[in-house]
Structures are given as structure tokens and as C-alpha cells.
């Protein structure tokens, strides 16, 4: 049995412009254990792990390895100390057109001083390490041709080559299927038992953590709120700690008139695999929430409805009439509007003035014969819309690039208010938006529902969803696992289903 290695992080704090991401965090990690770190979005778990992996050298506090003070200044230093991290975006660490063997042995290829490479040795080493963890993978295959799960294995194998003592897995199971997840788990268990590694396992999926981990650390708002052995805590307690029972959010929404069914989605399946037999409906005047953690399939569902992915099965009905949104062009024609998650990339034209951004989805009212644009009418409408959405700007000629995130989002929403869209899909509309603009946006959405539109509000911010929606559909793993009435539910309950509670109960 190898000697135990211990990493101790003491009073770790870190600040980013405007935010204190971590304050006085004490964290301890031992080799030979699987340690879960969990927290809501923005709780600081990724930041803590990035400090360990050398991505954020400007932390304050001390880190000891076996009692010896070390300072982690960059990724290289972190690796020398025996810490390796497998990020969620595995592709950033791999070279797609090199083979599996070359990727596993990448550091040897780069840092070996000799000019002539002993390919046989490279291949042999790669094969040995894959055998050691029991993975069957053709080492000659190019990495671009292997599955995501296999790519993770390549990274894990690379960490093993270096005899690392600690391995951080950042949401490794998010893109994996059930079978792949189980295989990963057996490998992780083997690494801990036979190679005596210390593993940090970050995941949003509670059942998984309870299946594989021995210890759990719960973070909230940049602090550690609870540390426990896994058998001494229940899933509900974990959720309670994650959310912090300090505030009790009451549902403030008034009950509104209930309209007829506006949108009916039946058994929708898309080709991304993250929309799997989804059925739900939205009434006129209603705001429904799509709750779920990152990667649950909310964005994919919105995109599938809006005609951005191939639909393999299922149907969509608008006011009882079956429709097909083959492309976004058809979706807009069918009175849909989407406020996308990646605002700057997908929602707005940053180099264009506000009035052009507002009218782009519906120029028809501002054109005369020969498709000439009635400039004055267009600008007048833009001025009215700027007032309506409360965007803060001197005039309608401002470039959208010069606006704040919140005001940019208002423009992205305003664009659809200039159209006759009946169904508005909001995908994480408050991302990167300050508190003031947030409440403006909520009011705006509420008004739309009052005026007779139907709103789908997709977010992983549960407090928002409880604040603004009438009903909630909780997504987990590409499926809607639960329908809840907002006035009768709690954040706990939503989180319970969003972390796979139901699936766990069934298993």
C-alpha cells in the first residue's frame, strides 16, 4: 500500500473584477478516496478546482501537500505536483488528427529532448496504460473519430502515464450514456482502489454522487457549507444545503385567466439525443418554465421547436393546427420567436444600430413597393419599442455593441415584440444581466403573457423559474421527468427532480 498523500487548502479566497468568487475556503483531499463537490451554478466549485489545476494563480491562502507549503502558479506546476484535471470540454485538451497513442503520450512527444521518436515505445506505453485500466481502444485511431466517452478515457490514461496522484473530473458524466457512465465508474473505482488515486468528482447528478463517492463537499456562494461522509447524509439534505434554507421564496404571481392550449408538443425526438420523447403544452397567457441543470436538454428542446435541429419523431401543434418548423425561417413564419442563450453570437448584430436590430425579424411593415424601407417609420417604431422595453440608450442609432448586457438582451427581446410572434421561447434570458435589468426583463415577459402570448422560459436558475412561471416542466437527461404547478412547489422539489431524484427513486 502506497503512502497516503493529502492536499490541504487553507483559507483560500479569490476575487474577480466585481465578484468574490471564493471566500476563506478550507478544503482537504486525500489519495485513495472519491470526493464529491457539488453546488448550484456559481457556487464556486469550478473556481476551486481551477485553482488546484493552476488556472487561477492569483488566489490568496495556503495550499499544503503532505504538510509542505506549495504555491500553484500555473498548469505545469500543478501537474508537477501530481494534480490533473479532465475538463468537461475534453476537446480542448486533445489534438483531433493525432492518434489515440499520440494523444496519450502527448507530453512525451513534446518535451522529450530527442529529435527522433521511438514510435514503438510510444505505442507500447499507450497500450500498457489502456490495458492497466481495462479499456479496449484502438490506439491507431485518430482522436477525432472516437466517441466522447473514449476521449475522456484518453485524458484519464494521459494522467495515469504521469503517475498523477490526484485527478479532478469536472462533470464527466454530463455527455455520457448510462452504459458509458457505468464503465467510467468502474474505471474510477479501479483507479482509487488499485492505483490509490485521489479523485474529485464534480457532478450535478445526485444519484451518481451517492453511488460512487465516499465524501461530499457542498458549496454555496463561494463558501463550503457542509462536508460529510456520503452515508451520513441524504439527497434531500444535500439539496437543502445547496440552496441554503436562509430564504423562503414565496410565489408572488397572481393567478391569471387561463387560456386555451396554444402550443402542444407531442413526443418530440431530435437528433442531438438531448430531446428524447418530450411532450408538453403551453396555454395562451401562460408562462411555463423548463427547469433543469446544465446539459439537461433545455436549449436543445428550444432549438428543436424553433427548427434548428432535425426532428426525428413527434409533432408540434399551434392552436390545434399541426405545424412543421423545418428551419428558423419557417418558425418565424409560424409565429415563433426565440431569445437564444448565446446572445452576442446568436441574438443580436453588435455592429449595427439599435433600430436595425429591432426591425430585422419583421421588416414587412416598414417596406413599400420594391422593398424600399420607409426609414422614418422604422425609426419611429424603434423609438417606441425602446421606450416599451425600457432600454437605456441616448437614441435608436447607437450601436448595440455599446450597450450593457442587460440592455442588449432587451433589444434581443424587443426584436420579437416587433413581430406577431405568438410563442416566445426564452433560453437563459438573464445570463450576464445585472439585477436591475433582470427585473425589467421579468416584467416584460409577464406583460407579454398578459397580452395573450405564450411563453416558454428555460433556465437552470431555479429561483427565477419559481418567480415568473405558472407551471414548470423539469428536464433531466433529455426527458421531462415532472410537471409541477409553480404555486404548489418549492425550490427543493424542483431541484430534487432536476438532479434525477425521480430516476433514483425508480432505480
Amino acid at each position, binding site marked *: 500500500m502506497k503512502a497516503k498523500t493529502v492536499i490541504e487548502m487553507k483559507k483560500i479566497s479569490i476575487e474577480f473584477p466585481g465578484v468574490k468568487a471564493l471566500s476563506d475556503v478550507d478544503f482537504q483531499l486525500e489519495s485513495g478516496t472519491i470526493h464529491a463537490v457539488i453546488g448550484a451554478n456559481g457556487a464556486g466549485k469550478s473556481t476551486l478546482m481551477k485553482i488546484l489545476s493552476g488556472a487561477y494563480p492569483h488566489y490568496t491562502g495556503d495550499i499544503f501537500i503532505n504538510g509542505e507549503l506549495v504555491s500553484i502558479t500555473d498548469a505545469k506546476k500543478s501537474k508537477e505536483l501530481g494534480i490533473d484535471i479532465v475538463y468537461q470540454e475534453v476537446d480542448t485538451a486533445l489534438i483531433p488528427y493525432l492518434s489515440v497513442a499520440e494523444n496519450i503520450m502527448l507530453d512525451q512527444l513534446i518535451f522529450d529532448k530527442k529529435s527522433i521518436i521511438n514510435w514503438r515505445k510510444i505505442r507500447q506505453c499507450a497500450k500498457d496504460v489502456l490495458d492497466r485500466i481495462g479499456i479496449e481502444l484502438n490506439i491507431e485511431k485518430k482522436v477525432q473519430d472516437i466517441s466522447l466517452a473514449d476521449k475522456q478515457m484518453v485524458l484519464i490514461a494521459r494522467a495515469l502515464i504521469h503517475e498523477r496522484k490526484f485527478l479532478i473530473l469536472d462533470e464527466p458524466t454530463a455527455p455520457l450514456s448510462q452504459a458509458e457512465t457505468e464503465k467510467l465508474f468502474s474505471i474510477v473505482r479501479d483507479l482509487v482502489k488499485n492505483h490509490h488515486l485521489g479523485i474529485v468528482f464534480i457532478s450535478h447528478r445526485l444519484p451518481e454522487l451517492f453511488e460512487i463517492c465516499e465524501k461530499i463537499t457542498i458549496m454555496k456562494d463561494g463558501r463550503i457549507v457542509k462536508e460529510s461522509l456520503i452515508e451520513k447524509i441524504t439527497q434531500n439534505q444535500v439539496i437543502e444545503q445547496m440552496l441554503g434554507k436562509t430564504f423562503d421564496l414565496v410565489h408572488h404571481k397572481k393567478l391569471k385567466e387561463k387560456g386555451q392550449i396554444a402550443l402542444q408538443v407531442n413526443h418530440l425526438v431530435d437528433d442531438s439525443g438531448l430531446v428524447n420523447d418530450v411532450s408538453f403544452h403551453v396555454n395562451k397567457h401562460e408562462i411555463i418554465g423548463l427547469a433543469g441543470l446544465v446539459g439537461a436538454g433545455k436549449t436543445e428542446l428550444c432549438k428543436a421547436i424553433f427548427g*434548428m435541429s432535425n426532428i426525428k419523431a413527434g409533432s408540434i401543434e399551434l392552436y390545434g393546427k399541426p405545424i412543421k418548423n423545418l428551419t*428558423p425561417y419557417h418558425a*418565424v413564419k409560424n409565429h415563433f420567436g426565440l431569445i*437564444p442563450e448565446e446572445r452576442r453570437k446568436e441574438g443580436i448584430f453588435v455592429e449595427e444600430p439599435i433600430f436595425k436590430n429591432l426591425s430585422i425579424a419583421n*421588416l414587412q411593415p416598414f417596406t413599400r413597393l*420594391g422593398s424600399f*424601407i420607409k426609414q422614418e417609420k422604422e425609426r419611429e417604431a424603434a423609438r417606441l419599442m425602446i421606450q416599451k422595453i425600457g432600454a437605456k440608450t441616448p437614441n435608436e442609432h447607437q450601436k448595440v455593441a455599446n450597450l450593457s448586457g442587460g440592455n442588449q438582451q432587451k433589444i434581443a427581446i424587443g426584436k420579437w415584440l416587433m413581430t406577431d410572434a405568438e410563442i416566445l421561447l426564452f433560453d437563459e434570458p438573464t445570463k450576464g444581466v445585472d439585477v436591475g435589468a433582470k427585473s425589467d426583463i421579468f416584467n416584460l415577459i409577464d406583460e407579454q403573457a398578459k397580452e395573450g402570448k405564450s411563453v416558454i422560459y428555460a433556465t437552470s436558475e431555479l429561483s427565477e423559474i419559481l418567480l415568473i412561471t405558472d407551471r414548470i416542466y423539469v428536464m433531466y437527461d433529455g426527458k421531462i421527468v415532472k410537471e409541477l404547478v409553480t404555486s404548489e412547489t418549492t425550490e427543493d422539489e424542483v431541484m430534487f427532480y432536476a438532479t434525477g431524484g425521480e430516476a433514483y427513486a425508480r432505480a
Partner: protein
Amino acid sequence: MQERKNNQTLLFIKDWAIVLAVILLIIVFTVSIPNFMQTNNVLNILRSISIVTIIAVGLTVSLSVNGFDLSIGSTATLANSVVVSMFVWFNMPTGVSILVAILAVLCVALFNAFLIVKVKIPDLFATLATMFIVEGVAMTYTGGGSISVGMPRLDGTPTEGRISDFFLLLSKTPWIILIMLVIVMLVHVFLTYTKHGRFLYAVGGNEEAAKLSGISVNRYKMLAYIFSAVLAGIGGLLLASQIGSAQINAGAGYLMPAVAAAFIGQSFAGHGKPNAIGTLFGAALVGILENGLVMLSVPYYSLNIIKGLVLAFALASTYYSRKK
């Protein structure tokens, strides 16, 4: 206050840099060459930039969707070969000859659109391939040689057709200059004041956002390549009218100055994006430079050095400011 004023001056210079450069060049050449500003020479310059400008305006439209059309030179060659062959080989009337040439360049446009929109090859590479294909097609069609009035066909049959006077008149002053100005104005109005122009720029500004706003991105990309091919074709027709024959790779020389003109024109009046009037000024800049240098007895074989430098400068001014 002072700083702000400086900033505004700087912005003014940046926005009107091409116009200032054109004026500066005119002053320099007027001073150093006695008969530079004579009516004859001015008309001469305008005539010499007409074809480049028309082709460059087409390129401008393809640039507006953030595309690029390298095949414009070969497309002009194709139009040149087809129209002259119609006249000389087949003895066709003017209208039919022009129509057939335009149909030929439309095929090029559709092929480009197919490669870019359907097969999803990046614009630059797709049109690079088209450039060679069309060059080869034009050359194969003419049998690797030129076509001129009275010259027998490839198989030795004598030809009787001639090029109509009306067609030859098109490239005479002032008609060619008027044609250029009308095309520049039409494309300018189309891009700036119509819905379709707005959508073309939207596709170029942010393709994903344009798609999500319900714009049929593919249709507008295709439209842009139709524009660039048809205008290149018109350039080729005027070239045929000018030289009265079809020559091997006659249009190839127009690609580079057209690219230079379109890129120089981007900063015109603070547009910051491809625009027709800016392109006209860009072409004027290149044309004046060329004319003046020739009159200063710089040998023609050295002109490319200077034209290349101007292009590099134009590209630098576009991309350098974009980085920030």
C-alpha cells in the same frame, strides 16, 4: 475638450481617408504632370476604371454577406468568350449574344452557390476552385485561342459574323462611364435602402443571428453570388466591346484591382462594411495611381508592385481596425 476634438479629427480622417487620398493623389499628379487634369485624361481615367469598378461592385455584394468571390476574373473571361463567339461564330444579333453570355455567367453563380451553400465549402476555397474551372471552360470553349472577326473556327470553317456597331459603342466614352455610374448607383440604392440589402448585410454581420431572426440565409447568399457573377459578366461584355475580340484569360487581370477597390472602399464615409460608392472611390484611387504613374514613365511591368502595395494597405486598414 482638446482631446475630444483630436479624436473627432482622427475619426473624420479615418472615415474619409479614401476621398482624402484621391484628392491628395490628384494634387500631386497635377503638380508633377502638366496635362494630368485635362478633360481628355480625366475621361481616360474614368473609362479605364469602368470595367474594374463594375466587377468590383459585384465583389462588394459578395463581401456584404461576409463571402468572397475569387471567380469574378474568370467569369468576366467567360462572358467575353461567349459573347464574341456568338457574334463571330454564330452570327447572332446583339440581344441574343448578350443574353447567352449572361446565362453562362448565371450558371457560374449557381455553381458557386451550390458549393458554398449546399456543400458548405468556405467561400474563398469554393470560388478558388470555380476560378480554375471557369478559366478552363472558357479556354476549352475557344479551343485555347482567341476569337476575332474574320478568324476561321477551330475546324477551319470560315466565319462571317461581325460584332454589331451598337455593341462596340457600349465601351466608348461617355457610354461606358455612364453604365458604370448607373450600376454603382443601382447597387448602392439596393444595398442601402431596400429590405434585401438590409438582409444581405445582416447575413454578413452575424449569420447565426440572421438565421435565428427568420432570414433565409442560404437564399441571400445565393443572391449575393448571382450579383457578383452577373456584374463580372457585364464587365466581361464591356471588355469584349472594348477589345472587339475574345482573348485568353482576358478577365484575369481584373480580379486583383477589383479586390483592392472593394477593400479600400470599406471604410468610406464610416461605413465599415462593403459598399458600392466606396468601391467606386477605391477603383478611382487605383486608376488614378496607375494613370499618373504611367504618365510619370514608371514602366508598366513595375506597376503591379505599387498596386499590390495599395491592396496590402487596404487590407491592413480593414483588418487592423477590426482587431480592436
